[in-house]
């Protein structure tokens, strides 16, 4: 019993330190994005644009392809269940709602965690090990402003954009199933999709993607700054960033889905 309390206490302290560290970084990011430019400390636009290309533009092919496949899968699974009720037409609604409200933002976030969240941790971690982060500090340059803010801005802008791409590709995946198996025309499918969707479906997905952007950047960068030791430490932090990001994104997704569900029930 004594050991159990000690374990819980230790775990709580580690969690509090982790959350505290991430909160401190979020505060610093907010200062460097919103306050510092007003005080004449320049915003690093070029670095942010370069990150947007890496995080967003370069991820478009893989996000589109996977979302398209998922659209086909949802349509197939939906058709399997709905056929029994003679409600095959509702495959359109199912694909549209599931992709825009849930799978579009979630899958995009998971792909981006694998592509960018892990690379944030590895890049910053390698810089930490190579004393590059220390060098920035000795030059009077704030590492958060220099390393985190461009990635944060890029993620906040590009994750909703990628989610929109994923939504579109997923719906087109569903359409391809409808065209091949049900003999519908593309125009017909898209018109039904427009009817099935309400703005709230798309907006709720985009709000989630913004929250995911915050989570992925913060965990990736924080893990990078937390690296200790050499190459092994970088590997450990990179793995930790992926695991913690996926867990946090799914947990946040559950919370926000519940909020949207109960919030719109009445």
């Amino acid at each position: 019993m004594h050991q159990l309390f000690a374990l819980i206490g230790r775990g709580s302290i580690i969690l509090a330190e982790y959350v505290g560290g991430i909160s401190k970084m979020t505060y610093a990011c907010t200062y460097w994005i919103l306050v510092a430019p007003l005080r004449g400390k320049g915003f690093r636009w070029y670095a942010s644009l370069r990150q947007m290309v890496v995080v967003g533009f370069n991820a478009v092919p893989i996000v589109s392809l996977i979302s398209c496949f998922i659209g086909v899968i949802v349509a197939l699974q939906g058709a399997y269940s709905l056929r029994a009720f003679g409600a095959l037409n509702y495959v359109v609604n199912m694909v549209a709602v599931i992709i825009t409200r849930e799978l579009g933002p979630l899958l995009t976030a998971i792909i981006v965690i694998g592509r960018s969240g892990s690379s944030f941790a590895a890049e910053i971690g390698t810089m930490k090990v190579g004393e590059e982060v220390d060098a920035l500090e000795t030059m009077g340059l704030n590492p958060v402003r220099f390393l985190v803010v461009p990635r944060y801005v890029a993620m906040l802008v590009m994750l909703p954009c990628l989610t929109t791409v994923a939504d579109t590709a997923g719906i087109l995946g569903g359409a391809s199933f409808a065209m091949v198996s049900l003999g519908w025309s593309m125009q017909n499918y898209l018109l039904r999709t427009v009817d099935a969707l309400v703005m709230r479906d798309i907006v709720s997905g985009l709000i989630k993607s913004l929250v995911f952007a915050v989570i992925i950047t913060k965990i990736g960068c924080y893990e990078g700054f937390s690296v200790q030791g050499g190459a092994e430490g970088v590997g450990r932090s990179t793995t930790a960033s992926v695991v913690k990001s996926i867990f946090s994104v799914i947990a946040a997704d559950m919370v926000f889905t519940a909020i949207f569900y109960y919030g719109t029930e009445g």
Partner: protein
Amino acid sequence: MFRSGSDGMGTMPQAADNTIAIAIRNLAARFGEREILHDINLEILQGETFVILGGSGCGKSTLLRMIVGLQKPTQGQIWINGLNITQLSEDEFNELRKKIGMAFQNSALFNSMTVGENVALSLREHTDLEDSTIQIMTRIKLEQVGLSGCDPLMPSQLSGGMRKRAGIARALAMDPEILLFDEPSAGLDPIIAAGIDELILRLKQAFRMTIVLVTHELASAFLLADRIAMLDKGAILFVGTPDEFRACTIPRVRQFLERRADQESQDVEQYLKSLTREATTPGSRM
């Protein structure tokens, strides 16, 4: 030589002729129950080359990192140009850091930037100079360290010695008043290391800046130092001129000068104890 004055933030040490660049008072650093630095008191004068000598793990790099604010001391004060850095705000300290250059042991060049971009970074971030002026200044800095024409190269394309030189050029970018070197010849062959020593000597003679150099290389220390401090088990063992250091009779200094090995110990705890000292009353100095 030194007297005390007050600036409202504690007692500021001052030389009678106001020439102290860096003053360290009662500095201690502790990690867990190990005291890495113990009651360090030093004054480094403006324009002098001050070498901090000591064996591996004795705390000399930690001391250098504290001078530049990368680590915070557990207790004590560090004064640079009359400012107590342990009480400065981040903005105030960053302003002071513009007057300090640091060359790291592993150069710490930004690998995603060219050598020229590395050198130009401080100038771009801290000054309003035009791009053409920054490019000219970058070329001058690289020329000063013998790397003319290397500005478009990536750090990965440079040899170890060239990387060290590029790191020094970056440290020189803002024309610092104080230049810090962490093991400048570590990991280099004797010929390249001698080249780096000569470069530091040339910089010392040309710019008369305050140089603090951490090393365990005796040859470098004797060539460059105006004064030498020897650190052992986190405490200052000796401070004086190179000639005084050569004549010093302290057994540990003699052992260092004569390159005599310690008795080998296989016990990790014993080895750590030999490098540092155990804090007498943990927490009492906080």
